[in-house]
């Protein structure tokens, strides 16, 4: 059953996610959307130097996008910007790779292995990470350090 695109773990994760908590006075935020799906997600961050201290924001999206956002909310806190960046890049690579196992996926995202075969849905999984990276880049833009 876990080769189904929408397997239980993902659906449960998506249902559990509460995506409407807003941060007060976030340091930065970004909204990204996927015109093909109509997914739209706003990521708000609180930073301490290079480290993510809090993350939240409303998600309007499909099950994959919600589950992915929920995982991110759980694991991003405490991460450095670079770590997040390389995790996003690993996930992107893993989705595109030819390997027929889930080992190249970042651990927290292994449940998304069945998405691999569905190219048109890769962006649903990636969107929350893209939002976070975009928020970070706004942050850096504002604070002036590169």
């Amino acid at each position, binding site marked *: 059953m876990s080769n189904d*695109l*929408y397997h239980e773990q993902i659906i449960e994760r998506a249902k559990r996610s509460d995506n409407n908590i807003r941060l007060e006075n976030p340091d930065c935020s970004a909204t990204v959307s996927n015109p093909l*799906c*109509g997914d739209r997600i706003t990521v708000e961050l609180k930073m301490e130097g290079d480290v993510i201290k809090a993350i939240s924001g409303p998600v309007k999206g*499909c*099950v994959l996008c919600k589950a992915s956002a929920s995982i991110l909310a759980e694991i991003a806190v405490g991460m450095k910007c670079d770590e997040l960046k390389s995790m996003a890049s690993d996930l992107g690579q893993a989705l595109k790779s030819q390997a027929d196992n889930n080992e190249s996926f970042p651990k927290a995202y292994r449940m998304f292995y069945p998405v691999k075969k569905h190219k048109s849905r890769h962006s649903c999984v990636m969107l929350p990470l893209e939002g976070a990276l975009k928020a970070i880049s706004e942050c850096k833009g504002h604070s002036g350090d590169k």
Partner: protein
Amino acid sequence: MAFDPGLAAVDFTILRSQAREEELHYLDNAAMALIPDCVINAMVEHDTLRRSNVKRGSHRLAEEATEAFEKARAAVADYLGVSDPDEVVFTGGATAGINILAHSLGLMFERNDEVLISQLEHHSNIIPWQVIQQRQGIKVRYLPVTPDGRINLERAEDMIKSRTRIVSVTHGSNVTGAITDARTLSGLVHDRGAFLILDGAQTAPGGPMDLPALGADFYVFSGHKVYGPTGVGILWGRKEILKNMPPALGGGEMIQDVGLEKSTFLDPPHRFEAGTPPVTQAIGLAAAVKWLAAKDVKGMRGHLRRLTLRIMEGLTQLSGGIKILGPETGMERIPLVSFCVEGLHPHDICQVMNDRHGVALRGGFHCAQPLHDFLKIDGTTRASLAIYNNDNDVDALLNGMEDCMKILG
């Protein structure tokens, strides 16, 4: 005797059990209809026996290809109920047809001229006019939509002004299913001396028609939605207007005389067919409309009306709050139903319906974002029917939706 969709289904390899392993309830016909074997065969036959460029007969293949191509034009004219095949221009699709019109008619616009479209248009009938607006300072205005998803024709009378040159609207909405009363609208449009363009992408699959009776000046549609091939479409226009319209796209086979400074052009339809046309696909399209016209079209229409009604009533009865867009049960609509389910994303519905029930639906904005903005909804799920669909498909849809709402809800 009742209409038997099975008599159409047997014409499609993809629908005969051997072709695919898993069950297929194809309800995505408004995006693209399946293609019957006889249409494929007509194209294969052309490509293997008469393959050649057209419009000049310098050898036997070229002559045969040209004749087949012009016969295809005549077959399409027949399907549309138009007496002069020279009013039929082969294009790449409905989108290409509207772009040709926007760019060609655009050459005749003056600053501050107006084009009136509607809020329920497909993007293909919005963006081309916005491009002309940006380039030439004309104004694009929008007829509003009624709460039940029809173009509000009551507003047409005062929105069509003396500066309105073009009114371009969908003949049948790919989202709400509403059908535009073209006769009434064309009267209003012509009273003001404007031209009426109908986007027929969703009405052309309904069977042979009497296009002149609609009163429109132009009508476009796509081959792939009328059981024909991709890569081809039709632009029909009244001869007197086509004759005075400059071409916006240039190339071979559409010129009278080419000078270094200026060129002159052939009469329609050739003037608007720049370059090598989609020859094989035109022949396929002709085969498709002939195939459709030979079916029991009246029976098909009744059958599809009945299935549409079953879907509307069945969805309404599901608990969980399904909202159906478009005209109410019993009102005229093309055979498609778009709906929203409170709290569920259309893509999730489509995925579960596909994976667990073999039902092919489409979810999202259906290339009609302004309509969704107006209705304040984030996307819809759409089931659209074609000649081969049957009660089984409707059962699969309704049962599937019940399951779907349980799983995702």
